[in-house]
């Protein structure tokens, strides 16, 4: 068991998060307050919420774990994940925010229903698909939280999951997006300062930037190359990876809904650059801490993990334990990891709550439902999604990164084309969007399954396909949108004008 200082530090963090939830709950007057914070978020709260939403469990544990396993060819993750914030703001956010102000959108599904003149079918499909992909993603987050609690306290997995779930669930359920946004502010600042202080210590302990590169290059020359010669992280894979992370994360429901919450569209002017620089530095340091962990393991300083399902994801925890011989600092680092994970988890749960209570219940099943019942249902769904994913996270995958990429890949194949075509192509039709979203989702689930379980069928080894599996589903989604739209009735010009559809970002 952990010492008293560790328990105090982690408990204080949990109490602070619950305090934010209680404070935020007093600001909630209606569903709009709960789901989009009354569209009143300021510049830095928005930027830090975007960073907090994108920075997930993978960002601390999985990123370092992947760096440990595969070296520099995986560095593209550190470029395209921070860029996803800018892509989201520039290509989706500006137009969605402007249209949402006049049309009163609460969720992106509101936009899709309006733009494609499909108040029931596309809205329901989009919400159900959003809930499925968010749940996949959420399982990865709870796995990461429980890993940290197990490492720090030596408690069983089930207990770690229960603690993590309870705290996140309570402050999200009572405080809605105000709680998520302000918790993200605290969590992102904690994360940024913590990583800027602690990652250089790990790197220094392993011999410094140049020495680590030189050492891992002697272990395997491919580890310091920008890509692998074949297979995963070969050039074609890197291109599909860039699309996966840059575009897939940008259109993920829990990320894109953030653009509806800001007070002023002018915040979108410099936020892409600021988010790219801040988060780019943080996530690069984390990746390099993984390289340092590899140098420590190969140099015999620390032992490689055994006896756990996902050993590489523990490398940064073992490296920090080796580099900072002080249990209080471990506790602080644990809080940093918890902050990163919880800042994504809370947003995901709230997004699931919004998609179910607003898009499915209020807009499809019971249009005459009053605001109080929608608000109550949002809170109930947040609680149920937390409990459901906690149960799913009991058996974690071999590598956290794989599961989280599966979630992002499914988001890419499902949402990217209907959103991009809706915003920029006046020829995109309702039937095209339905076909694109349905086939994209099904193809992503199928290819993801075949790839994850290394199926060899029809003469194809799905474990060794040259692109990330989501790229194939993305292409199917694109072809379906173009082909079906060309054959079906066009959207009314009035709707296209109302939704500012056309080849421009802003007029």
């Amino acid at each position, binding site marked *: 068991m952990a010492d008293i200082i560790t328990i105090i530090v982690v408990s204080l963090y949990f109490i602070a998060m619950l305090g934010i939830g209680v404070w935020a709950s007093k600001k909630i007057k209606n569903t709009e307050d709960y789901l989009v914070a009354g569209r009143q978020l300021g510049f830095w709260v928005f930027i830090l919420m975007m960073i907090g939403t994108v920075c997930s469990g993978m960002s601390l544990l999985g990123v370092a774990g992947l760096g440990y396993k595969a070296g520099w060819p995986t560095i593209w993750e550190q470029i395209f994940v921070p860029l996803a914030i800018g892509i989201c703001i520039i290509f989706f956010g500006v137009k969605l925010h402007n249209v949402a102000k006049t049309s009163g959108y609460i969720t992106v599904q509101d936009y899709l229903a309006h733009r494609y003149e499909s108040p029931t079918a596309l809205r329901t499909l989009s919400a159900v698909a959003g809930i499925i992909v968010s749940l996949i993603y959420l399982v990865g987050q709870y796995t990461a939280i429980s890993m940290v609690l197990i490492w720090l306290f030596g408690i069983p997995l089930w207990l770690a999951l229960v603690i993590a779930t309870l705290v996140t669930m309570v402050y999200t359920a009572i405080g809605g997006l105000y709680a998520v946004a302000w918790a993200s502010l605290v969590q992102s600042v904690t994360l940024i300062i913590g990583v800027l202080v602690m990652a250089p210590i790990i790197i220094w302990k392993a011999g410094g930037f140049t020495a680590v590169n030189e050492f891992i290059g002697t272990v395997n020359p491919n580890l310091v190359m*920008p890509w692998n010669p074949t297979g995963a992280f070969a050039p074609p894979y890197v291109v599909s990876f860039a699309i996966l992370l840059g575009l897939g994360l940008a259109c993920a429901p829990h990320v894109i809904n953030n653009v509806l919450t800001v007070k002023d569209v002018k915040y979108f002017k410099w936020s892409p650059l600021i988010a790219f620089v801040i988060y780019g530095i943080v996530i690069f340091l984390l990746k390099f801490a993984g390289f340092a962990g590899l140098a420590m393991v190969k140099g015999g300083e620390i032992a490689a993990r055994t006896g756990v399902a996902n050993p590489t994801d523990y490398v940064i925890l073992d490296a920090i334990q080796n580099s900072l011989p002080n249990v209080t600092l471990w506790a602080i680092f644990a809080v940093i990891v918890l902050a990163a994970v919880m800042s994504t988890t809370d947003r995901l749960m709230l997004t699931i709550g919004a998609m179910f209570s607003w898009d499915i219940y209020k807009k499809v099943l019971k249009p005459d439902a009053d605001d109080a019942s929608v608000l109550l249902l949002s809170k109930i769904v947040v609680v149920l999604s937390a409990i459901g994913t906690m149960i799913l996270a009991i058996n974690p995958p071999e590598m956290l990164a794989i599961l989280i990429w599966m979630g992002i890949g499914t988001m890419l194949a499902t949402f990217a084309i209907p959103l991009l075509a809706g915003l920029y192509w006046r020829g995109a039709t309702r039937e095209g969007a339905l076909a694109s979203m349905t086939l994209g989702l099904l193809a992503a689930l199928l290819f993801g399954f075949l790839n994850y379980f290394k199926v060899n069928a029809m003469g194809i080894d799905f474990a060794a396909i040259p692109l990330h599996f989501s790229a194939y589903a993305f292409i199917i989604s694109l072809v379906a949108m173009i082909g079906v739209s060309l054959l079906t009735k066009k959207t009314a010009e009035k709707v296209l004008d109302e939704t500012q559809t056309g080849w421009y970002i802003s007029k």
Partner: protein
Amino acid sequence: MFGLPDITIIAVGGVVLAITAALVYWGLTFQGHD
């Protein structure tokens, strides 16, 4: 440099610089409106 092959520095550095330049350009040119 930094214990890395030139190709790594050029490829990674080049992409980072290009993205940064594009985001600076966006910041300088985007006016925004409500």
